[in-house]
């Protein structure tokens, strides 16, 4: 099934990003281009999801080379869902960044929007590619964009954080490259479908495990699983809020996407040792992340630690390794992208009004701004998995899959983690929203953050995300079905192989 539509989520960001480089230092033109580009991308992504939903897996061979030599773009339901989530954030972040005072004119003038667009391009590319070396290239596009976003502004803390971020990501990329080398050495191919056929027929070579460990390490660093997460809480709270929000919402999930893609389609490893390893990693990631969060007294740092904990749930879905569990993981990823970004959005709204992220200095928000409190309430308790909010459905499917597969320990850990998540969200609720604001004589150093700040754009983005979360909470059924079909596509690899290689697998097997 060939369809040109699949190139839309790549071409539009590419053209927009390159185009806005021609308007260097002309912020107005860059903003218009970004708004135009991101809304077109969103429209194209939704169309792509619709086509994928209607017609099955869509693929396209760039330059009409014959597969497996062509670079193939492929969109199954998993990719398409992730792309839509990315496009939604890419669109909403514009209004937020517009109103956010921590994004100054200088940021915009020095290529804030083009860098953002390049990062989105890299993310879209990682979701669409069917070639593992190409995946590496898209990862780098994404990373360079995120490097630029993280360092833009050049505050001391930002620079400190980005050194760690750049170094660790560079190492992760080098490890990924090594893994690709091993895979190519065994099979002589980098095409995911080709590899899938190869490893279905002969999974004997012990080198496969070396490749698997390379991929686990590399994607593990990028998605911040235990024990490779230390760079994340050192980095994610340093840039302007709009940047933290989109990076926190998307980048680690790209790592998880790559993990799921690798270990379902390309090298399905079904040994007990590997499954136990993944289950242990998942359980520890959940626990350590949430315990780290409980200790924090900085709004954004607390949220940053929570990302790690939530990654644990996604890895748990992969570790249980049944279609239901992976479907739960996909649902959880989508829910988490919306909720996590929204929580960062709200921390930014509070920051724009108060000029601080410190929980000990904040207070009295419930009385002053009941609506903002409501937005926080929805997202925070959805993150904790309180029914009927969207986090509950994600956790419900994960727990059910875990019980079906008789993995009681990891299910127990996930439930305890849910409780601790609730506790840490209640901590923010108590400090920022519920109690009286502590009296201090301290005058804010930065006068641009104050109570009279107009936050319409930020509120718009946050309300839109909250609306999506509520939709997901009250009507989870369509998305649950979509994710279940997506997981089936990952486990029954024939459709994917047929779409990528343009062949009929039954002939191939005969």
């Amino acid at each position, binding site marked *: 099934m060939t369809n040109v539509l699949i190139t839309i989520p790549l071409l539009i960001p590419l053209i927009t990003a390159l185009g806005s480089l021609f308007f260097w230092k002309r912020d107005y033109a860059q903003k218009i281009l970004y708004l135009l580009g991101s809304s077109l991308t969103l429209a194209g992504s939704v169309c792509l999801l619709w086509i994928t939903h209607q017609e099955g897996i869509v693929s396209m061979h760039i330059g009409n080379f014959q597969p497996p*030599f062509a670079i193939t773009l492929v969109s199954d339901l998993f990719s398409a869902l992730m792309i839509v989530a990315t496009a939604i954030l890419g669109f909403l972040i514009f209004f937020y960044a517009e109103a956010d005072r921590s994004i100054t004119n200088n940021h915009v003038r020095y290529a804030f929007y083009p860098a953002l667009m390049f990062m989105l391009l890299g993310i879209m590319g990682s979701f669409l590619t069917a070639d593992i*070396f190409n995946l*590496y*290239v898209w990862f*780098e596009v994404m*990373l*360079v964009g995120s*490097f630029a976003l993280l*360092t833009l502004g*050049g505050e*001391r*803390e930002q*620079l*400190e*954080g*980005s*050194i*760690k971020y*750049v*170094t660790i990501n*560079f*190492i992760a*990329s*080098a*490890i990924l*490259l*090594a893994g*690709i*080398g*091993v895979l*190519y*050495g065994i099979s*002589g191919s*980098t095409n995911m479908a080709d590899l899938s056929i190869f490893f279905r027929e002969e999974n004997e070579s012990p080198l496969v495990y070396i490749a698997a460990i390379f991929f686990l390490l590399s994607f593990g660093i990028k998605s911040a699983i235990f024990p490779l997460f230390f760079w994340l*809480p*050192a*980095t994610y*709270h*340093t840039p302007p809020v709009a940047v933290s929000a989109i990076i926190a919402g998307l980048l680690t999930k790209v790592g998880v996407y790559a993990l799921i893609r690798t270990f379902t389609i390309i090298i399905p490893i079904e040994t007990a040792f590997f499954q136990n390893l993944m289950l242990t990693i998942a359980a520890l990631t959940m626990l350590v992340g949430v315990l780290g969060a409980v*200790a*924090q*007294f*900085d709004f954004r*740092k607390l949220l940053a630690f929570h990302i790690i904990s939530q990654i644990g749930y996604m890895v748990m879905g992969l570790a249980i390794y049944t279609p239901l569990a992976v479907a739960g993981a996909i649902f959880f990823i989508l829910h988490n992208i919306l909720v996590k970004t929204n929580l960062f959005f709200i921390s930014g709204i509070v920051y724009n009004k108060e000029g601080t992220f*410190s929980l*000990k*200095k904040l207070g009295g928000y419930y009385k002053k701004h009941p609506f903002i409190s409501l937005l926080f309430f929805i997202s925070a308790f959805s993150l904790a998995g309180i029914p009927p909010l969207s986090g509950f459905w994600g956790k419900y499917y994960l727990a059910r899959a875990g019980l079906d597969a008789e993995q009681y320990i990891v299910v127990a850990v996930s439930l305890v983690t849910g409780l601790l998540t609730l506790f840490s969200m209640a901590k923010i609720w108590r400090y920022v929203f519920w109690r009286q604001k502590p009296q201090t004589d301290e005058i804010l150093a930065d006068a641009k953050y104050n109570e009279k700040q107009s936050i319409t754009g930020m509120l718009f983005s946050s309300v839109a995300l909250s609306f999506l979360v509520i939709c997901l909470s009250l009507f989870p059924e369509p998305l649950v079905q979509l994710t279940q079909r997506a997981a089936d596509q990952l486990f029954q690899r024939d459709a994917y192989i047929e779409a990528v290689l343009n062949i009929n697998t039954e002939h191939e097997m005969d």
Partner: protein
Amino acid sequence: MEIILPVITGFLYAVGLFFMMHRSFIKLIIGIIIFAHASNLFLFVASDIARNAVPFIDPQVEASFGEMADPLPQAMILTAIVIGLGIQAFAIVLLKRVYYVVETSDLDALNKTDQLTHD
């Protein structure tokens, strides 16, 4: 060659990591660069120096080129080198910038973002 290259690759990995563990900015940069070279060489060695079939040759033509290196890993390494170059350049500029802002070239001094804030 086929015995020397793996040894060199391992050595480069070790040297790269060794330099990265140091506290100095300059050594971090050197470490990053050497580590990148190590992984490029690894890709070259791991994907076999000369074995796999050449992808773009008409099967009907009787190819009498003798043993021929697979060009695909070389193309991949070329891509990786270019990407690595970009990131290394970025890292150098970043470290210079950090040096001006923080006024130290000691990586251990950069622990502010890791600390628990209690204010």
